[in-house]
C-alpha cells in the first residue's frame, strides 16, 4: 500500500465521504499475497510508482493474485469448442437450474435479469464451484441496485490479455517495452479506488488505476508529470475520463498504442478527437461487469460480438421470444467466461438490433442504454453521473430518475432508500438544493429500464 496520507479533501465534507474509498480502507494483504510470483524487478517497479514524487494519493492496494501456473494459463483465451453445452452443464449445477432436464438447450432456459442476481446471487453460483478462486467485485449497474459479484481470479487477469488480443487484431502488437506502464485504467470522479499493480503475466510490468480528478493529485502539475513518466502503452477508461485527458491537454505527454473506452456510450465526435490526438485505434467496448465484455467496435458502425464465451440474442423486452432479425429488442447475453457466475440468457436492460456483419460475424447495431450524462453544479463544474450513482446507492436507493433542466433545476425521484440523506448528498454534490421525492418500488419509476439521468449538458 502506498504510504500516502489520508486524503483530507474538503470537498468530501458535508456527508459525501464514502467510507470504502478512504485510503487503505480495504488494503489488507501483503505484497507476496497480491503477486505470488513477484520478482525483484517487479517489486522495484511497485516501489518506484508507489513513491513517485508526483504519484496520486493511492487509495487502495491490490494485485492479480496469480500463481505461476495461473499466470501462464491466463495468457490464453478459454477454448470455444462446445463451450455452450459445457456452460449449460455448469448452469444446471446451480440452485437456480437444478431442476432443468439434462438435455435442455439454450432456448429452454428462461431469461433472467439483474434483479434475480440481486435477490439471490448464490442461486447462480455452481454448487461445485471452486470458491477459493473467488474475488469480489461490485457492479454499480444500470438499473440502480448495487450488486456484489463473485469474480474469478483467472478471468479478471485474462481481461488484460483480451485488451492485448484486441490491439493485435487492429495490427498493434503490445509487448513489454522498457519501463512503460502496460496499462492505465482511468477514471474521473471525486472519489475512486486508485492503485498501482504489476501484471504478473506480462513480464511484471506496472499498471495503475488513476483518478484524473484534480483532487486526487499532490499538486497542480503532478498529474501531467506522472502520466508523462508512466506513458502507458494501453489507456482504458470511459468517455468522461478520456475526454478529461484531452480537455486538460494531457494527450501531449502520452503515446498510447491503443485506447479502450467502456462502461458508457462513446460518441462519434469524442472518438474522433481521441483518434486525432493519439493516432491509434480506439475501441469502444460494450459489456457489463456481470457478463464481461460482449462486443467492440472501432468506428461508428455496429458492435462486433467478441469471439469468446459470449452468446448474444435480441429478444422481445417482455417475452422470451426473439424479435425478427434486424429489429430492435432487448440484448440478452449468455456469458461463460466467469466460472463462478455462468449466466444464461441474462437480460442486460440495453437495446439494439442483431445484424450479420460483412464477414459473417454477429453484430449489434443501434446499441442504446449506456449513459454518459453529466450535470452542471452551481459553481459551473461538471459532475459525471457516476458520482450521483455512488451517493444514491450509498443512501440505499434501488433505482432513480434524475433530471436537470436548462435552468439548472434538479428533479430527482428515488425508489427506496433514505430520502433525506439522498437529498442532502445530491445537494452537497451539486452545490444547490435538489427537489427529491421517494417512491417505494423501482417499478414506480415507470415501465422498462429507468432512464435514470437526463441533463441539458451536452456529451
Amino acid at each position, binding site marked *: 500500500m502506498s504510504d500516502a496520507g489520508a486524503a483530507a479533501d474538503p470537498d468530501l465534507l458535508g456527508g459525501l465521504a464514502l467510507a470504502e474509498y478512504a485510503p487503505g480502507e480495504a488494503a489488507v494483504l501483503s505484497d507476496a499475497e497480491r503477486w505470488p510470483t513477484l520478482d525483484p524487478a517487479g517489486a522495484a517497479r511497485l516501489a518506484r510508482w508507489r513513491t513517485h514524487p508526483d504519484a496520486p494519493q493511492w487509495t487502495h492496494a491490490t494485485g492479480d493474485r496469480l500463481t505461476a501456473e495461473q499466470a501462464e494459463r491466463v495468457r490464453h483465451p478459454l477454448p470455444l469448442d462446445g463451450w455452450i453445452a459445457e456452460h449449460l452443464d455448469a448452469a444446471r449445477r446451480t*440452485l437456480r437450474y437444478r431442476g432443468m432436464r439434462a438435455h435442455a438447450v439454450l432456448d429452454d432456459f428462461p431469461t433472467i435479469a439483474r434483479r434475480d442476481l440481486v435477490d439471490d446471487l*448464490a442461486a447462480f453460483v455452481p454448487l461445485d464451484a471452486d470458491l477459493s478462486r473467488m474475488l469480489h467485485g461490485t457492479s454499480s449497474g444500470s438499473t440502480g441496485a448495487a450488486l456484489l459479484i463473485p469474480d474469478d481470479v483467472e478471468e479478471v487477469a485474462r*481481461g488484460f490479455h483480451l485488451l492485448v488480443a484486441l490491439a493485435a487484431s487492429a495490427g498493434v502488437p503490445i509487448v513489454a517495452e522498457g519501463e512503460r506502464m502496460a496499462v492505465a485504467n482511468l477514471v474521473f470522479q471525486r472519489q475512486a479506488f486508485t492503485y498501482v499493480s504489476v501484471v504478473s503475466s506480462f513480464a511484471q510490468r506496472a499498471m495503475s488505476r488513476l483518478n484524473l480528478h484534480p483532487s486526487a493529485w499532490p499538486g497542480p502539475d503532478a498529474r501531467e508529470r506522472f502520466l508523462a513518466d508512466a506513458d502507458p502503452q494501453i489507456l482504458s477508461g470511459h468517455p468522461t475520463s478520456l475526454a478529461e485527458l484531452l480537455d486538460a491537454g494531457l494527450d501531449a505527454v502520452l503515446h498510447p498504442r491503443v485506447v479502450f473506452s467502456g462502461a458508457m456510450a462513446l460518441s462519434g465526435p469524442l472518438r474522433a478527437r481521441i483518434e486525432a490526438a493519439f493516432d491509434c485505434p480506439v475501441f469502444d467496448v460494450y459489456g457489463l461487469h456481470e457478463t464481461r465484455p460482449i462486443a467492440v467496435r472501432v468506428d461508428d458502425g455496429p458492435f462486433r460480438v467478441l469471439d469468446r464465451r459470449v452468446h448474444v440474442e435480441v429478444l422481445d423486452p417482455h417475452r422470451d421470444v426473439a424479435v425478427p432479425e434486424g429489429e430492435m429488442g432487448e440484448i440478452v447475453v449468455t456469458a461463460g467466461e466467469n466460472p463462478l457466475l455462468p449466466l444464461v440468457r441474462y437480460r442486460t436492460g440495453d437495446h439494439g438490433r442483431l445484424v450479420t456483419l460483412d464477414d459473417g460475424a454477429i453484430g449489434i447495431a443501434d446499441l442504446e442504454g449506456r449513459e454518459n450524462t453529466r450535470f452542471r453544479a452551481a459553481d459551473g463544474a461538471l459532475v459525471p453521473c457516476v458520482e450521483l450513482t455512488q451517493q444514491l446507492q450509498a443512501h440505499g436507493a434501488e433505482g432513480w430518475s434524475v433530471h436537470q433542466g436548462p435552468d439548472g433545476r434538479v428533479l430527482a425521484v428515488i425508489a427506496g432508500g433514505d430520502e433525506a440523506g439522498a437529498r442532502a448528498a445530491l445537494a452537497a454534490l451539486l452545490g444547490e438544493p435538489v427537489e427529491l421525492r421517494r417512491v417505494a418500488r423501482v417499478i414506480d419509476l415507470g415501465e422498462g429500464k429507468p432512464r435514470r439521468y437526463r441533463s441539458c449538458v451536452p456529451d
Partner: protein
Amino acid sequence: MAETEALLAAWSERSGGEAEAWARARTGPSLESVAARISRVPQEFLDERVSLRALAGDIVGGPIAAQRFDDDPRVRRGAGIALWLVASEGVIEPLEPALAHGRTALAVDALALRVAPVADPAAWTSDDERRIEAARTFLLWCGYLPAGEDAATAASLLAACDSLARDRALADAYEGHRHRAEIARKLDEARRREAAARYSSE
C-alpha cells in the same frame, strides 16, 4: 414446533462451513466413547422444564443458537444430549483429548439444529446408527476426528449415516441453505481481502 427447513437454515448460517470444519478437525476421542455417553444421558438433561438458555450458560459458558428454538422438542432434546456430552467430562471423567478443549457450543448447535430435526433424538439412545450419527456429528463440529480415522474416512462414514440423505426434498432444501450461507460467507471474506486489479472499465 419450528419448521424443519427453518432449523436447517439456521444451522447453515451458524455452521461456518462444512469444508472448514473438516479442514480444522484433529484427532479426537474414540467414536465409541462418545456414543456410550449418549446412551447414558441423564433424564434431567431432557426435562422440558429446564431452561435451555440457563443450561447452556452453565455448561458451555454462553448462549447457543439453538435456544432461539427452545419451543421445539426435537431441538431441546438434541441440545440436552449434546450438553450432557460436555457436562459428562465433569461428572464421569474427561475424554482424551477433552471435548471441553473443542468448540463445544458449535457442536451442541450441530446436534440440535442439524441432526435433531431429521433424526429424532429419542432414537439416539435406542438406535445404534442414529447414535453413531449423533456422535460423529458432535465430534466433527467440536473440532475432532474419531480416533483412528482420517478426514476422508470420517467424512465418508458420516455421509453414509446422514439421516438427511433419506429425504431428497429436505436434502435439496438444506443444500440450498448451505450453499447460500457459504457464498455469503465467501463473498464477505473476499470483500475483506481486497478485489483484484482490473484493466478496463465496464
